[in-house]
C-alpha cells in the first residue's frame, strides 16, 4: 500500500485505511447508531473485529492486547453510553501508561451541544484520563489525526488517545492521503539520556555500598528487561519491582527481591529502607510502594531514570535524574559503570531472604489460595497471567514464578476490578501462541463475566481461575485488621454458580473443592482448548501477608505471626 497517492473515499473508509497503515490487525468494539458508517466499511475490510459484550471490555481487551504484544491496542464504541462505558478502561490504561487508541462515534456536528440523543462530551470527559484526545471537525484532517494518535499513544510515556468521530465526518468524502510523519511542535519525547547525567550516575553507583534497583512498568514498556538484568548483574545490585514491573527480571533470578511496597516481600522492603542508593527505573514512587513518604529510604541517594520529566522529584526528591528511555539509558549506564562494593550487602540480603521468606500456613483439607497460584505456576510455565483486583491479585504477584516481561498483566494504578478477564481475551488474541490465564476473584469476575460470550463466540480459549472466597476479600481483610472485623457489605457468598455460568455460555466449567482437585482441574481446563472457568473454593478468611498498613513506613510490616 502506498502512502503517497491520493484517492477519494469516505471518512469511515479512511479510518480503516489508517488503521491498516498503522499495522493494526485486530480491533475490539461494539456498534451503535453513531458509529454505523464505520462498521459499514469494516464489513468489507480484512481487519479482525472482536465483538465484546460491554464497551468497558473493549477498552480492557485493547489494553491487554497492548500489554501482551507491545503494540497499540484499538477499541471502538458508539457515542453517548458506548463512549462513557469505555471510560474505566481508558482510565485504567492511562494510569498504567498503556498505548491504546479509542475511536468513538459522535452525533453529527450540527447537533453537538444540543443534548442530542446519545450525545456525551467524551472529549471533555476523557480529558484527564487520556494522553491526548481529539474531536474531528473536518474529515480532511482524519488521516493526520489518526497518524498523530498512534504516534502519541505509542511514543514517549505511552498512554491512551481518544478520537471522537461525528457521524457526518464518517460519511463525508475526502481525498485520502496518509502523512509520512507527524509534526507536533509541542510533543518531542526525550529518548537518549543526557550523557553527563549517565556519567554522574555511574560515579554514584561506584561510591555505593548498598545499592538497590527499583524497577517499574516503564522497564517493560520500553522493552528493557534484558538491559535491566544485564545492568543489575554488572553492578551486582538487588532488584525489586513494582506490581507492574513484575516480569522485568525473572522471579528466580538470584538478584530479584520480588515486589516491594504494601504487599511486597519483607526483604525487598528492608533492603530499600536500608539502602544507600536507590536506582529507580521507569517507576513513579506510588504511595503503595513508598508507604509513608517521610520515612522512605531515608539514607539513600536517588537516581531516577524515567521518560516522563514530570515524574522526577514528584513524590521523592531525586539526586540524579536521567530523563529518557529506560532501554537506551540502561545500556549506556552499563557501559560506564565499573566495579561494585556490594558483597556485604548481598550477603545481608541473602540472610533476610532466608529469615523472612514469603510463607503461608499449609493445610490439607482446605484450599489455600497461595497453593493455587503455586499450582498454576507449575502447570502454566511461561503463560501470560492476567489478574483482577483484590487479594488474588496480590497472591498472583507473590507466588507465580515469572520468567519474561509482558507475561503479567494487571491493573496497578487504577486497581480496576473487572479488568482481568477482558484483558486476558485481548492478550490471547494478540498472543495466540501463549497460554493465557486470568487469576480472578469471585467479586471481580462478576464485573465483566458477560465476556464469556465474547470468548466463546470468537473461540478465544482463555482460562479463568476464580479464587472463590465468598468475599470481597481485600476489603474484608481491611475490615478485619482495621475496622474490628465489622464485615460491612463484603459478603458475596450469594453469588452465581460459576460452573453453571460457564456452561450457560457454552464454556467449560470446573470446580475444585479439595487441594487434590486443584491441579487436575487446571490441567483439564487448559487441555480442553476451550474458554474455561475453574471455580476454586478457597479458605474464605485468608489474608494477604506481608502487609504494610496504609500510611505506615514500609518496614513496619504485619505478618502472619503478628
Amino acid at each position: 500500500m502506498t502512502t503517497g497517492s491520493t484517492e477519494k473515499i469516505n471518512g469511515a473508509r479512511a479510518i480503516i485505511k489508517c488503521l491498516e497503515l498503522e499495522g493494526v490487525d485486530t480491533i475490539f468494539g461494539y456498534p451503535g447508531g453513531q458509529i454505523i458508517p464505520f462498521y459499514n466499511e469494516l464489513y468489507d475490510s480484512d481487519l479482525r473485529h472482536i465483538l465484546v459484550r460491554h464497551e468497558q471490555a473493549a477498552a480492557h481487551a485493547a489494553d491487554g492486547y497492548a500489554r501482551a504484544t507491545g503494540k497499540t491496542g484499538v477499541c471502538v464504541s458508539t457515542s453517548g453510553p458506548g463512549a462513557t462505558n469505555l471510560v474505566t478502561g481508558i482510565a485504567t490504561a492511562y494510569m498504567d501508561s498503556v498505548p491504546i487508541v479509542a475511536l468513538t462515534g459522535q452525533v453529527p456536528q450540527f447537533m453537538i451541544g444540543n443534548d442530542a440523543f446519545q450525545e456525551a462530551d467524551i472529549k471533555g470527559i476523557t480529558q484527564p484520563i487520556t494522553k491526548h484526545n481529539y474531536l474531528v471537525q473536518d474529515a480532511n484532517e482524519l488521516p493526520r489525526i489518526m497518524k498523530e494518535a498512534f504516534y502519541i499513544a505509542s511514543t514517549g510515556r505511552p498512554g491512551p488517545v481518544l478520537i471522537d468521530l461525528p457521524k457526518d465526518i464518517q460519511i463525508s468524502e475526502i481525498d485520502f492521503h496518509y502523512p509520512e510523519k507527524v509534526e507536533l511542535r509541542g510533543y518531542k519525547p526525550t529518548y537518549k539520556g543526557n550523557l553527563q547525567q549517565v556519567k554522574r550516575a555511574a560515579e554514584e553507583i561506584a561510591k555505593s555500598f548498598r545499592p538497590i534497583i527499583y524497577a517499574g512498568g516503564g522497564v517493560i514498556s520500553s522493552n528493557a528487561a534484558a538491559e535491566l538484568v544485564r545492568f543489575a548483574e554488572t553492578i551486582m545490585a538487588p532488584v525489586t519491582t513494582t506490581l507492574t514491573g513484575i516480569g522485568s527480571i525473572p522471579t528466580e533470578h538470584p538478584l530479584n527481591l520480588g515486589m516491594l511496597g504494601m504487599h511486597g516481600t519483607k526483604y525487598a522492603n528492608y533492603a530499600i529502607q536500608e539502602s544507600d542508593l536507590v536506582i529507580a527505573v521507569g517507576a513513579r514512587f506510588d504511595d503503595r510502594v513508598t508507604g509513608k513518604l517521610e520515612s522512605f529510604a531515608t539514607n539513600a541517594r536517588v537516581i531516577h531514570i524515567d521518560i516522563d520529566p514530570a515524574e522526577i522529584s514528584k513524590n521523592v526528591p531525586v539526586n540524579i535524574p536521567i530523563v529518557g528511555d529506560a532501554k537506551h539509558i540502561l545500556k549506556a549506564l552499563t557501559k560506564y559503570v565499573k566495579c561494585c562494593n556490594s558483597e556485604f550487602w548481598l550477603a545481608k540480603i541473602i540472610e533476610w531472604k532466608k529469615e523472612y521468606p514469603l510463607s503461608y500456613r499449609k493445610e490439607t483439607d482446605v484450599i489455600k489460595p497461595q497453593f493455587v497460584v503455586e499450582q498454576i505456576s507449575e502447570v502454566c510455565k511461561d503463560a501470560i497471567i492476567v489478574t483482577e483486583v483484590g487479594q488474588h491479585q496480590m497472591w498472583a504477584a507473590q507466588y507465580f514464578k515469572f520468567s519474561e516481561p509482558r507475561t503479567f498483566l494487571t491493573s496497578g494504578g487504577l486497581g480496576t476490578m473487572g479488568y482481568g478477564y477482558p484483558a486476558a481475551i485481548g492478550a490471547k488474541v494478540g498472543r495466540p501462541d501463549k497460554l493465557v490465564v486470568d487469576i480472578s476473584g469471585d467479586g471481580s469476575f462478576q464485573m465483566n463475566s458477560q465476556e464469556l460470550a465474547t470468548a466463546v463466540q470468537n473461540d478465544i480459549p482463555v482460562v479463568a481461575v476464580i479464587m472463590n472466597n465468598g468475599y470481597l476479600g481485600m476489603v474484608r481483610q481491611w475490615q478485619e485488621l482495621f475496622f474490628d472485623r465489622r464485615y460491612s457489605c463484603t459478603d458475596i457468598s450469594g453469588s452465581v454458580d460459576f460452573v453453571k455460568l460457564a456452561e450457560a455460555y457454552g464454556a467449560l466449567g470446573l470446580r475444585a473443592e479439595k487441594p487434590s482437585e486443584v491441579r487436575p482441574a487446571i490441567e483439564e481446563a487448559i487441555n480442553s482448548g476451550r474458554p474455561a472457568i475453574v471455580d476454586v473454593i478457597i479458605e474464605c478468611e485468608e489474608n494477604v501477608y506481608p502487609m504494610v498498613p496504609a500510611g505506615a513506613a514500609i518496614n513496619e510490616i504485619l505478618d502472619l505471626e503478628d
Partner: protein
Amino acid sequence: MKHTLAVLVENRAGVLSRVAGLFSRRGYNIDSLAVGVTEEPDVSRMTIVVHGDDSVLEQVKKQLNKLVEVIKVSDLASEDAVERELALFKVAADESSRAEIMQITDIFRARIVDVGPKSVTVEVTGNEEKIMAIENLLQKFGIKEMVRTGKIAIARGSKKV
C-alpha cells in the same frame, strides 16, 4: 511565591479547557489567566499567574509541558518583565465628587471612558500594585463594579520567550 508563566499553545479549540482542567485536577492555584493570539496566528499565548512553592511550580511547568498542545512554558521573573493588567472601575459619582475622581485618574494616568448621571467609568492600565493603589483611592466614592483582564507579561529587552 507568585510566578508568572508565559505559555505558548496551539491556537485551537479546547486548549484553554485542557490547561484550566490541568490546574483544577492537580490542585494548583491560578491567580489569573489571560489568553490571546500572538504574532504567529496559529499560536496563542497564555499568561498564567500561579502561587506555590518551588516544587509545586516545577510540577506545574512539567505538567503543562506534557500537554501535547503546549509548545513552550517560560517562567517570567518580575524584575525582567514588563507586566500589565487592565481594569475598568464603575465608580459612583455626582457633581461634588466628579472633580476629585478626575484628579485621581490623572495622577494614575488612567482615563475616564464613560460618564453617566450617577457614575463614571475609569480605565487603568498598569501592574498589579498600581491597580490596587487606584482601587484603594476610588473605594471611598463607592466602586459599583470592577473588571480586570488578568496580567499579561513580556520579557524586557530583545529576549523572546
